[in-house]
């Protein structure tokens, strides 16, 4: 996993609420056995019509809207546990997803793949949507060490929470499996204390 520190980019606004993982990557695209290539089908059924033409109104098809920061409505990533949703966002080029509320499994999956899930207050996000609506080329900065989010045209930055362990993993590009593997002996002694299983 690549270490993350500061991400500066233009933003893609997606004000829809309750964006579920079936929308992020529909089930029929889950037949792959590798992690790559899911980005092409990100938001497939919102992005393309049934005959494969781009839907002009959808944000990813709008000229002039691009960037590696996705700003979404509340309860992002609910539904299925498919990690493919995080892979699809990352593969498409997103490094950060901002929402006022994330589904639990999704935020674990995102962080496990170096995709930063940044939770900000609902009211602040509404201001971001309004600002981006007027000027889609505004840049935002997400600074992991100081846990701060800021955007051009919005005066005060917002801070976000992230647990210490995850933060240090992301800063070092270290993953949870490395961490768990270093606990093997402890896991074995735990097993020895248990009678059943």
């Amino acid at each position, binding site marked *: 996993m690549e270490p993350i520190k500061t991400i500066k980019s233009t933003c893609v606004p997606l004000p829809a609420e309750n964006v579920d993982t079936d929308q992020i990557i529909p089930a029929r695209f889950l037949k792959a056995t590798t992690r790559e290539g899911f980005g092409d089908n990100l938001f497939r059924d919102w992005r393309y019509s049934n005959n494969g033409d781009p839907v002009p109104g959808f944000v990813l098809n709008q000229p002039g809207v691009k960037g590696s920061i996705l700003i979404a409505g509340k309860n992002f990533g609910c*539904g299925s546990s498919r990690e493919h949703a995080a892979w699809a966002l990352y593969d498409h080029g997103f490094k950060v997803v901002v929402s006022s509320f994330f589904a639990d499994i999704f935020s674990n999956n995102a962080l496990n793949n170096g995709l930063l899930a940044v939770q900000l207050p609902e009211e602040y996000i509404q201001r971001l949507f309004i600002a981006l609506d007027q000027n889609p080329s505004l840049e935002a900065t997400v600074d992991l060490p100081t846990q701060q989010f800021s955007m051009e045209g919005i005066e005060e930055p917002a801070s976000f929470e992230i647990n210490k362990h995850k933060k240090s993993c992301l800063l070092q590009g270290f993953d*949870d499996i490395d961490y768990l593997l270093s606990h093997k002996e402890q896991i074995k002694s735990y097993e020895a204390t248990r009678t059943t299983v």
Partner: protein
Amino acid sequence: MTGKTLFDKVWDQHVVSEITDGPSVLYIDRHFIHEVTSPQAFDGLRNRGIGVFRPKQTIATADHNVPTIDQHLPIRDKLSRFQVQKLTENCQEFGVELYGLGHKYQGIVHVIGPELGITQPGMTIVCGDSHTSTHGAFGAVAFGIGTSEVEQVLATQCVLQRKPKKMKIEVNGQLGRGVLSKDIILYIASKISTSGATGHFIEYTGTTIKELSMEARMTICNMSIEMGARGGMIAPDNATFEYLKGRQFAPQGEDWHLAKQSWEQLYSDENAEFDVVHKFEAEDIAPMITYGTNPGMGMKINGTVPESSENIKALAYMGLTAGQQLLGKEVNHVFIGSCTNSRIEDLRLVASLVKGRQKAPNVQAMVIPGSKQVEKQARLEGLDKILEEAGFQLRQPGCSACLGMNDDKVPSGEYCVSTSNRNYEGRQGPGARTILASPLTAAATAITGRITDVREII
């Protein structure tokens, strides 16, 4: 001193170590895997040059992607075939038991675990699938994980998890005629919304819940995730022990008595504290259906679609308008199956309703048993004949139209009354319009060809 909840008791017993301000290293007793969310995890092990740490604690099956007819033939879809084959190869290489296509134990992962007695009270159980919460019906801490976490479990038999908050949902009283546990959970979801339990682990309790069969309890716990919860559980009791006794992988003989003794300690102490408590009355619950595009958008079957700014997009997708009644609406597809409602009890209920009746000509009615064993039992009891005579198709086990990864898709724009758990846009195929309901409501709808209040025909 405050007491411990059921959840605390099970969780705390499985903590190997804790990280300050971070997650716990949580030991996992049982790990289920399937073809869709495991291949990248096995690749991860290969890249690290390590094996599966405790292969006997992982059980594999093929369910998400498999056809529901002609399972003895090679899978026609190339990508599906390859994915299922990959699972077989991975299980062989890493020494994991596989109940693949054709195996007498094959089926939907959340159906086979309980029916084989692999799922037991007090265990921690995970699977790369959000409906792992189903196993909580036995008093297990069971939750869905992502593929990176599947790799964690394969590599170390542990996951890193933060302890969630605790929620109690109490349902008391007597259920009305024609009201099933599916209606209870759709009702609760409609009250607390699709994100109402995010960050929490639910314990379901109350007199209504205690009266339910194990199958019905599984339906409730199954849909915990539809309210955003990490999982949901029910304290084990005699119904649980009766269900498990004698099953293939349940403890036998002296071990059974010892296990039962420890399972009997699994309940929330009188003075245990929950972060959130919800209470509902069974008499307020009627047969339920959904009108929107998330499982929280549900209403009583004879209700009218509510007016709300949050519905606009959903109603446009569903081709419905606020203020409209769904009762009497023509429907062309009925799907009875999925890890929510595909157990033998569900099939018996459906058969008892359709016996001697005929499905409406405008409806295609599919019944997908949850497992090989359910299928076998259904045939043994003659349910296959009853269903077929009524014009229902009894197929072979798998997830099927629940997520439409195989050929069982609902055509764009058409309505399907479905006993599954999700009605998201495109869930049953691009453009498909899903209406979630209980097996009785689904069966009644298949008979009349219109959305039907089952209470009117029983």
